[in-house]
Every structure is written in C-alpha cells, then in structure tokens.
C-alpha cells in the first residue's frame, strides 16, 4: 500500500476516504473518526478516494463500481458499511453509533500497528479516558454532547429508579460531574422495564438531573410504545417525524455550523432533532424556517422602501394603540 503522507508501518496517521453517497451517513462516520482523533491523536486524515489507504464503502443496493473496485483492490483496506451483515472483518451497520464506528477503526488501527484488535478501543471505554475527552471539550463553546441509551428506568412496583447504563463504569456522581461540564446535554431513555399506566408517577430522581439537562430527548422516533409510555409520564411532547425530516433538520444545523456534534453512542441525529423539535413544537414554527430563513416580512434589503415604511407605520400605530389602552 502506498501513501503520500503515511505508510502502514508508521503508527501515526493513515489516509481515509468515507466513500458513501448518503451525505448524512458520510458525515456521521467522519464525525466519529474526528472524535477518535480527539481521543487518540490524529490517526485518520481525510483524503480523496484515489489517495486513500482505507476506504469506507457501501455494498448495499446503491453499491458503486468504485466500491467494488476498492473491495477487490489489495492496495486499499476496505470497511464495509451497510444494512446487510457481511462476513467482512470490518463491517459497520448504519444503525451503529459512534462507538461502533470507532471500535471498527480501532481494530484497523491496532492491526496496522501489529496490536491485538480492540486494544485501542478499550482505552476509550475507561472512565479516565472519557473524562479526559470531556475536559478537552470543557472550554469549547456550543458543544453538544449526546449520549444514547444512557439511562434506564426501572420500576420495581414501588418506585422508578434511574440507572445509568452507559457509559460503562460511571457512577451517578461521576456522570453528574461529566454533565455539569457540558454546555448542553441530551439523554435518551431506554424503555422502562414495566409501567403501570394507572399510577401517578413521581420522579424524585428526575429533579436531580433536570437541573443538568436543559432538554431531554426521549424515545426513538418510530417507537409508538415509548411515545405512549412517556405521554403517561407527562413528559414534553415529542413529535414523530419521518427520518427524511431528521436528515434535513440535522443538515440545516450542520450547514449553519451551530454545533459541533460529538456522539458517544446512539442515534445522535435523531436526538438532536428531537431536542429542537421539542423547543419548536411549542411555537408551531417550521424548524427549517427558523434555522435557515429570515422571518416573514423581514425588513431586508430586497424589499422596496415604501413597503418597509408601510410595515413600520403599521407597527407604530399598533404600539400607539397599546399605549392608549394601558
């Protein structure tokens, strides 16, 4: 394998091309690799398909000749990305979270450096490593830290208990410390073990982390059961939307550069969209309109002056009416 800036005997960096036609999926994988770099140093350099040592390809319905060529090309390491499980040693599924993606690339990196597979990813799963990552982010503005399936509600016939099930080995205190360092946090609840719909649910524990979570995203977007359950719990409304809208919404945010997104695990794009949809469901305002477009009748440069004056005149009259009535 040839590389202009790296070679496989070097432990430093390798050229990667995420060769996926779906821009959102492509972005997800690339974000995971960037997070890997933040955790472990700059191991992966993004480059073109031609110059890549490693290519991420899809062998699904939309497989391309490029992908097949890459898989059959001994000069490139291939990573297969797709719904259909293959026997490929480095297969990633679209439903996987950043941890799965990083695990695959950790295996690759370990192999390239004659280490045992999974050696690199093991370090990520340690609490110290995770805290180190968050400390790096602590001073960074507009950081969205997203977790998937972090919290499990357990109902033991008397009360609900909250258990943090991921990241592994984190105590509640440690988790609280972690979250308090974030600008903005999102959690996703897994399904309660059992729920008695007839009981009034008291969540003492929730007051604890309501202080930590500005907003909480709940349930999977397609999960009607969760929707019913959480409605019983009087949680904030969650609008169910098709996945295409998720993609559009997240694309809008990414394009605006409003957030750097770091995913620890889970379907971050769904969670992020849910958070914003919760905010905006209160307003009945189109999500994309608010994020990407000026308000209607804005006094923008494209409007003629007489129209602007007319609008301001109406406003002034309205204000005068309020004043007289007060």
């Amino acid at each position, binding site marked *: 394998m040839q590389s202009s800036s790296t070679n496989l005997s070097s432990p430093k960096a390798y050229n990667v091309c995420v060769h996926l036609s779906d821009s959102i999926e492509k972005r997800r994988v690339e974000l995971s690799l960037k997070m890997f770099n933040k955790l472990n140093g700059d191991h992966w350099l993004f480059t073109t398909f031609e110059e890549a040592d490693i290519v991420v390809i899809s062998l699904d319905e939309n497989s391309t000749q490029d992908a097949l060529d890459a898989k059959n090309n001994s000069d490139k390491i291939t990573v297969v990305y797709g719904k259909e499980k293959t026997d490929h040693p480095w297969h990633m599924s679209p439903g996987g979270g950043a941890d799965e993606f990083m695990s695959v690339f950790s295996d690759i990196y370990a192999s390239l450096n004659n280490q045992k597979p999974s050696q690199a990813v093991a370090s990520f799963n340690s609490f110290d490593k995770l805290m180190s990552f968050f400390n790096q982010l602590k001073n960074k503005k507009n950081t969205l830290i997203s977790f998937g399936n972090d919290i499990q509600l357990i109902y033991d016939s008397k009360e609900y208990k909250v258990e943090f099930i991921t990241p592994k080995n984190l105590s509640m205190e440690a988790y609280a410390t972690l979250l308090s360092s974030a600008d903005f946090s999102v959690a996703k609840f897994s399904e309660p073990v059992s729920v008695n719909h007839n009981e009034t649910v008291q969540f003492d524990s929730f007051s604890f982390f309501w202080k930590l979570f500005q907003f909480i995203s709940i349930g999977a977007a397609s999960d009607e059961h969760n929707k019913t359950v959480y409605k019983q719990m009087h949680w904030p409304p969650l609008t169910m939307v098709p996945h295409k809208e998720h993609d559009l919404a997240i694309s809008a945010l990414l394009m605006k550069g409003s957030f750097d997104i770091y995913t620890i695990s889970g379907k971050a794009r769904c969670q992020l969209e849910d958070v914003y949809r919760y905010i905006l469901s209160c307003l009945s305002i189109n999500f994309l309109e608010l994020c990407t477009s000026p308000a209607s009748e804005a*006094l923008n440069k494209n409007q003629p002056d007489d129209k602007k004056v007319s609008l*301001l005149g109406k406003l002034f009259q309205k204000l005068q009416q309020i004043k007289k009535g007060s």
Partner: protein
Amino acid sequence: MKFVFTGCVGSGKTEAIKTVSDIPVISTEEKPSDDLEKQTTTVALDYGELHLAQGSKLELYGTPGQSRFAYMWKILSEGASGFIILVNHKRPSPVEDLDMYVENFAEYLTESNLAVGVTHTDDINLMTNELSKYYEYLKHKNISAPVLPIDPRDASSVTTLLQALTVSIEQNL
C-alpha cells in the same frame, strides 16, 4: 417582521414580551441550574406576537440571558429587523453587561436597529443623568441607539421603547 429582546438574566425580557404580546407568550422557563435569585429562567426562547393591520405581525423573541445558551442567540437573531437590549441597572456593572451583549450581537447590529432599555430603576423620571454612562458607552462604540428607562411590567413603558426602535429603523431606510 421580527424583534429580538436580549440582555442579562433578570433584566425583564420575558416580562416585557408578556406585557405587550397579543398572544399568550410561549416560554421555555425552567428551574435554573445555576445559583440565581430566580425561580425560573428562560432556557431556549420566549415568543410573543403583535398583530398589526392587514394581517401583518411583529414577532417578539426573547433570548436566554446566560452566555452558555449563546447558540440560541444566533439562531434567534437570524432575520431579525430590530434588537432590544435590556440592562438591569441594579447589577454591579451594567455597562459591562451592555458591552457583552453588544459584542455578541455585533454581526447583526446596524447603525439603526438597536434600542437599549434600562430596567430596575427606582424612579424612571430621575434617570436622565444616570443614563449618560450608557450613551457614552454607545458613542464610544459608534452606535447611535435610543436608551430609555423602562418598567417591563408597564405596557406604556415597553411600547415607548419599541416605538423608539421603530422610528430609528425608519429614519435610516
């Protein structure tokens, strides 16, 4: 048309919008996670409307005060025609507060789309001399914005500020 109210925590943004809005204000108020002397604080936005003649409307957005929600400031500022910065006069350094918001909203401010409301004054009629420090600051920043003492609970007071802003925008069309 869209106006954005911003300013420090407790300056009266939510209250001012509630005072003049034609619709029940939609608020995202939660218990604060920081050590504030408030029961609740805005965590995403406040939203109210003024219904104008012939179906037009003025959208009133209130931002969260804390800088950790600054990402919402940018989102809410998109397409805004006017900005109102409310300054709590009883805070230790109100001019520094004003400076923080002017700096953070600088990319959206033009020479005519800003008004400053000074809140938490014991007697708004005695404020003239005290307002000079805000004017001096704005002059130093080359900004010619109206500065008015207001009581966010009083409709007449809030509308006066909005009218000042309206006129300021119109004059510079």
